[in-house]
């Protein structure tokens, strides 16, 4: 990954961190938004820093398994929020 692209991903990660903190401070009931921002950070990390976009075969398979795990967590969390 080039330096410029790594910096772009870093800025994206920081922006999502800012979203998480601001929502927690001003809209604390909006927990699904906080977790969506965290999921976005995890996705950025997995795809760009861990390099899912440039790998083939079983590396991509593992990456997809992680993403499925994340999706399952998101469904659980959103379900929890909806039924609170």
């Amino acid at each position, binding site marked *: 990954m080039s330096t410029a692209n790594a910096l772009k991903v*870093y800025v994206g990660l920081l922006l999502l961190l800012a979203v998480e903190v601001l929502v927690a401070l001003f809209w604390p009931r909006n927990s699904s938004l906080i*977790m969506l921002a*965290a999921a976005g950070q995890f996705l950025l990390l997995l795809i760009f820093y861990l390099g899912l976009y440039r790998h083939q075969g079983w590396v991509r398979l593992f990456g997809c398994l992680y993403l499925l795990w994340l999706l399952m967590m998101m469904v659980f969390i959103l379900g929890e929020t909806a039924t609170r």
Partner: protein
Amino acid sequence: MIRSDEKPAEPFVAWAQQREAARLGIWLFLATEAMMFGSLIMVAWLYRLQHPDGVAEAVAGLHWQLATANTFMLLTSSLLMTLALAASEQGNALRLRRCLLGAALLGVLFLACKGVEYGLEYREGLLPGFAEDSPLHLPSAHLFMNLYFIATALHAVHVLVAVGLGLWLYMRLAPDNLSARGTRTRLEMVTLYWHLVDGIWILLFPTLYLVGR
């Protein structure tokens, strides 16, 4: 100068083959890590579902500002590891070493900040098993603090290992006793581990500190 790893290690016959095997190994290892921490995160969320009042009481006592600073430090260290890998591809040894050292220092700062946080929690009677008169009233709040302590301490051990690996690589690079290919493979594996430790924290941070404040 004796360069011990100019040839791929036995039983590999080519560098590409060795690198592929190393990649498979590290991704399998990362999968076990993801499953372990994923289970802890799921337990935390199940706990939130079953005991919202107790969790809210426990979360209100946590120092989210310090945790936010820690998140910033880990994200920055991940950037530095990515830049180290880019420097390795460009053959820029000086920049590679600087990035590695910067990432390791940020990891040490993360651990120091975590230590300060534990110290504050100890003084406030929040740490499980250390306080006689805890400000937490609900039993479920105590249980959530147990979970918080286990998850964050386990993560801190992983950060410590990552820092150790980063410093080990930095020192091995110092006398230039690693071949370019050997460096590249080792650096890639350490970087992958570092990113996963960062990724785990990315999910632990809102799960433990932010949601339900």
